[in-house]
């Protein structure tokens, strides 16, 4: 503005006229620059619409020049100034255009860069989350308690029932192989999932002897329904853990699957002792992990329900069918 003022004054006009001229030129120019910067902050033109941006710059430059053209004659600064205004009009327009265009370019580059930075941050965060989840899964699959205790049972069986020891080694191998090859994206049929679950339950039955019984019932027509792999595993593990470690008597874990409209609905029940159950019961990581998984897959939070009445703990899971 000071530069503009000095320039006009140098052409031989008095300070008052020069000041008004610079005000009328610079203020609309600043407004135009602000407008274009603000627009670019929230809306970034795609490759095809750079021409639109150019047109906008031209229009804004023209508007700024027009403000000077209509505004300055009100000063009544004499004919010399009028002639000067006419002569300098093209120059004023070009200067305005250059200034606005320059502003647009700077803004465009700045905001694109900012956006990129943010995107990268988000991506890194998502990757970290995925890694953490994977690590957790791995650790879960290893289940040191289960693995070492099973090996200990095999160790016992080798002594006096070698055939059963051999059978248990095969069950354990099949089970471990099953947990390793599962791809989270690929859904499996219910009968596949139950087959895998049965391997696990058979091993647990060898470990705990007569204390552990299971009841699995499944309607014929839901054998083919689909669910995410290893979804039931942590739930049944939980049921066994609470059933066996919360009570001292015999324990029956029941699993029931049926079709309910367009949902595969699965119910898992285990006995527990409401008097001594630890406060965390039912909200343990097993159930929360499953809820989270279902949320990520189906974007719904209402697929899992738990009930506790008398001394039976029940969990209901509904899986939408395509």
């Amino acid at each position, binding site marked *: 503005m000071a530069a503009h003022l000095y320039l006009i004054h140098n052409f031989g006009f008095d300070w008052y006229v020069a000041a008004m001229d610079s005000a009328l030129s610079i203020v609309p120019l600043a407004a135009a620059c602000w407008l274009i910067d603000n627009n670019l902050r929230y809306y970034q033109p795609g490759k095809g619409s750079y021409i639109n941006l150019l047109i906008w710059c031209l229009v804004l430059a023209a508007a700024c020049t027009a403000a000077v053209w209509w505004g300055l004659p009100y000063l009544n600064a004499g004919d010399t100034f009028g002639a000067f205004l006419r002569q300098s009009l093209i120059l004023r327009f070009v200067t305005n255009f250059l200034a606005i265009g320059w502003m647009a370019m700077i803004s465009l580059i700045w905001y694109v860069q900012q956006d990129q930075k943010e995107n990268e941050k988000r991506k890194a965060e998502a990757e970290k989350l995925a890694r953490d989840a994977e690590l957790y899964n791995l650790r879960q699959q290893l289940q040191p308690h289960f693995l070492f205790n099973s090996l200990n*049972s095999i160790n016992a069986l080798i002594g006096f029932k070698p055939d059963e020891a051999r059978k248990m080694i095969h069950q354990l191998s099949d089970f471990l192989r099953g947990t390793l090859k599962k791809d989270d994206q690929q859904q499996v049929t219910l009968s596949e999932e139950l087959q895998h679950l049965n391997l696990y339950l058979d091993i647990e039955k060898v470990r705990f002897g007569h204390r552990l019984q299971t009841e699995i019932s499944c309607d014929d027509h839901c054998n083919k329904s689909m669910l995410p792999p290893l979804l039931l595993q942590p739930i049944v593990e939980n049921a066994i853990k609470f059933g066996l470690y919360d009570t001292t008597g015999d324990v029956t874990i029941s699993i029931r699957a049926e079709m309910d409209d367009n949902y595969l609905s699965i119910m898992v029940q285990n006995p527990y002792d409401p008097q001594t159950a630890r406060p965390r019961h039912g909200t343990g990581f097993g159930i929360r992990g499953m809820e989270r998984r279902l949320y990520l897959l189906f974007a719904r939070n209402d697929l899992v329900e738990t009930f506790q009445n008398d001394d039976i703990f029940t969990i209901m899971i509904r899986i939408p069918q395509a």
Partner: protein
Amino acid sequence: MKRVLIIDDEPLARMVVLEYLQPFNSQLQVMQECGDGFEGIKAIMQHQPDLVFLDVQMPKINGFEMLELVEQPPQVIFTTAFDEYAIKAFEAHAVDYLLKPFSRERFNKAVEKFLSQSGTAPAVKATEALLDSTSQSPAQHERIVVKTGTKVKIIPVHDVEYLAADDDYVSIHTAEGSFLKNKTMSFFEQTLDARQFARVHRSYIIRISEITRINPYEKDTHLAILKSGARIPVSKTGYVKLKQVLGI
């Protein structure tokens, strides 16, 4: 002849110990096998064993909680699959610990260690020290196991209203009544979560969320009124501590 008990909730795990003990049957006699801690307590009282093979993870009460309830704990060889907290404690104080599955050689070493130690080592002290160090394991922060007569009572920590010193015992007050436990006040001060409990007096620890009012009492002392109506004396230092916790 030394008397031996095997306490483990998995039948096959007991079988391994039984089998490995065969060569020692001129020195060690297995009195009984137990499937959980309750049976274990009864059997220990009945047989007064010299050595117990004890699993940690068992129904209802774990191996440590069971030992806490026995007046004169015997010497212990732990058999467990995996417990990072417990292993630290074993290393310090148990006769030995066996990580499942264990070999016959490893088992023999543990038994020979017991046989060479017995009669010389102050067994009871070692087992008591073991229990103190296992109080760091997370299960011990969630519940307190007490004996009322012949019954075992498991008190979830969130049911505890306050604790009061009572001679050599600590009485644990809950909505259901009070229970005695053979421990010290400082033991509970250390193991209970300091965000939930405060030791407001030499003889009292209270649950902070139970407080409804704090009234001035005699000079420098206060009385905390709990939801249950109990009036608990608060010492001068206890009041300073309470003010810190409550942020007043």
